[in-house]
């Protein structure tokens, strides 16, 4: 494992460029009859134009709620966005009216969801649903829309698109359904694509091809916010990675820096889990996640008294790379991160070996 700082990262961007999406201190809570869950608890990040940002974390860490809060499609109630700003192209989406949000959804920010089987309405042909997605914001004739739909299907790699356009979703395989779902998301040519675990519900071979498709999109200059729990998917696609735990982001950084030197203890345990080294039990075996201080402290082998109380620690730079930050006191001025970095051999080879083979 190298602890040498990377002198350059290709993802370093000039500071003067206005980010496409800038999320600041986003908070969403979910109220149930028994309790209130702070699903998103002060999340801040940015997505630049043409950049692919990957949100990784385990199930229940708040990834999906974060993304659904951005455009307000998280079901309210039970969810409630209680604070923060989501600035997209200079507009604060959290203060926008519902009709403004509607005009942004689909055309500016589109979503792809995890489960392709339920993402398509079973009673309409895929062509109908594509035409729906195209015409929902744009007044064009049906024949033009169908032509676009056919083109979109071809673009996402559906063979025989012109004939398959009149098929119903149940006549497609899971991978093909996800391609259609991606085509629907792309219908209005959005500036930002939010893909929520797009490769999770399909089998491994199909996953590889979907990653290939997503990579074509990201290479094509589209901004993508990708949610995944799979570090290999992130490795294949991301420019930057955000690691999420307990509703907060605990580490962020360019993919190469973060993968070569995972800094936060949670990130390191996440990498360990890939090598079968994880000492963490199953989520159900663990207690509740703390709602203050460092959310990971109960499971952290390095936790100290200072980890409790207050907010999630601020981001401290790792190895003086300002793009790589970890929300861990050990990286602060008063502590030395050496115990974490030398804890175990959290070396990962994921970055060197992209997944789709």
């Amino acid at each position: 494992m190298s602890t040498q700082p990377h002198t350059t990262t290709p993802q370093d961007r000039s500071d003067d460029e206005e980010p496409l999406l800038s999320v600041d201190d986003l908070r969403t809570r979910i109220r149930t009859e028994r309790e209130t869950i702070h699903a998103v608890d002060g999340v801040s990040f940015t997505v630049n134009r043409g950049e692919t940002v990957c949100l990784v974390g385990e199930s229940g860490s708040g990834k999906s709620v974060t993304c659904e809060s951005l455009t307000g499609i998280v079901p309210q109630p039970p969810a409630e966005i209680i604070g923060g700003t989501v600035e997209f192209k200079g507009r604060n989406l959290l203060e926008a009216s519902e009709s403004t949000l509607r005009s942004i959804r689909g055309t500016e920010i589109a979503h792809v969801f995890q489960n392709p089987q339920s993402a398509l309405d079973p009673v309409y042909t895929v062509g109908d649903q594509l035409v729906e997605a195209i015409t929902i914001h744009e007044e064009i004739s049906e024949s033009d829309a169908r032509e676009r739909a056919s083109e979109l299907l071809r673009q996402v790699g559906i063979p025989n698109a012109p004939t398959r356009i009149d098929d119903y979703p149940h006549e497609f395989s899971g991978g093909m359904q996800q391609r259609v779902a991606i085509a629907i998301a792309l219908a209005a040519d959005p500036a930002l694509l939010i893909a929520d675990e797009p490769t999770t519900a399909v089998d491994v071979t199909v996953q590889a091809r979907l990653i290939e498709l997503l990579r074509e999109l990201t290479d094509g200059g589209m901004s993508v916010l990708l949610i995944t729990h799979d570090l290999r998917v992130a490795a294949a696609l991301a420019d930057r990675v955000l690691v999420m735990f307990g509703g907060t982001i605990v580490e962020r950084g360019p993919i190469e820096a973060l993968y070569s030197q995972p800094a936060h203890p949670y990130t390191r345990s996440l990498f360990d889990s890939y090598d079968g080294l994880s000492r963490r039990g199953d989520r159900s075996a663990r207690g509740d996640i703390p709602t203050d201080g460092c959310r990971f402290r109960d499971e952290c082998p390095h936790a100290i008294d200072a980890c409790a109380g207050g907010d999630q620690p601020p981001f401290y730079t790792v190895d003086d790379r300002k793009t790589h930050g970890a929300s861990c006191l050990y990286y602060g001025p008063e502590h030395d991160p050496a115990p974490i970095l030398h804890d175990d051999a959290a070396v990962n080879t994921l970055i060197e070996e992209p997944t789709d083979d």
Partner: protein
Amino acid sequence: MSEPDDPNRFERVDWDEIDRSGRLHTPTRTAFIVAMVLFAALYALESSNVISLGWRLELLDWVILLGVAVLLSLVVVPAVRQRDLTLRVLGRLVSRPIHAAAVGFLAVLSFVAVVGPIIVGSPELAFQHRFHAPYGFTSEAGWHADCLGTMTAGEGVTRYCEGSLTYPLGTDHRGHPLGHLLIEGARIALYVLVFTAAFVVPLAAIVGILAGFRGGRIDDLLMGYVDIQLCIPAIVVFFIGYMYWNVSLLLLLVMFGLFSWGGIARLVRSETLQRREDGYVLVARSLGASPLYIAKRHIVPNITNTLIPAVFHLLALLVLVEAGVAFLGFHHIELYSWGSTIQEGLDPPLTGIGFVMDPHEIWWVSTFPAIALTLTLASLKLVGDGLRDALDPRRTH
């Protein structure tokens, strides 16, 4: 906004109709408005005697006419606009002989109910021809003043006759031909169907979808009301109305119509609650669709497989209820419902004045309306099931 969600619209929405903000002129809405304006104009002109239709229209007829206008604009206009789909669904519907027979029966029933009364007019009293047996049978009670068929036996005022082709289905105690009474009964059944389909079903569907889709306080309020309503027996309310107003079919339709939609509303709500969690609803939201649009385009078509059989069940139920109430005698005396005819066949009115007559001696009076009623109910159920299957694209292969 208030356009009722009609359960028969399905699958391919034509793209002009996609909900764009500020877009009011969809063909269905236009048809609805035109139908309503025509209806209002007709009503105004007729009731102020500017024009005469040649026959007197009761309030009931106006209500049914309004129902026809509603059904035309909300079901027929979209069906014709999407005729490819309509034809495909119809083709699937009649692909099974039993469903085809049921559709055929309902078509004949509707046709007879509309055209029959115009051709044969109102039944007239002909006591001299009472209790004629159907063609091919012989009367068992000697009540005939005139024998139209061959007289088989007779002595004094007692005559036994064979049925004749003048009254192929026989006559009742007033000398009304049974065929005539069946036509009148069919008209009443059609009234019940039109009223229910045009007013009760949209109400139930809208309330159910609203409650399921909006949730929260609206849901509590609507479903609370439905629960109360489900506790009140419609027949009691009908009898209360019966005490204060003239008995009429309209009273029956309104009372039973108002108190019978709760079940469907609950069903629609629970289906809506499930459907709104489906991925495609979230996808539609993520594409910027409005709640109304999602309800119309994604919720309604996906609950049809529950809604359609329930609707046809309600239609059958209300036809049966009307017959039952008429059987009990709480019907308008000039309306020859199947139920009242059955009752008159089972309890011959002449027994009250000292004559003894067994119901089996005039079996045809109760049997034919009972057959018509049974076939109607069975057809409604079958068409409901068939339509559900035909509308489900997953069953096409």
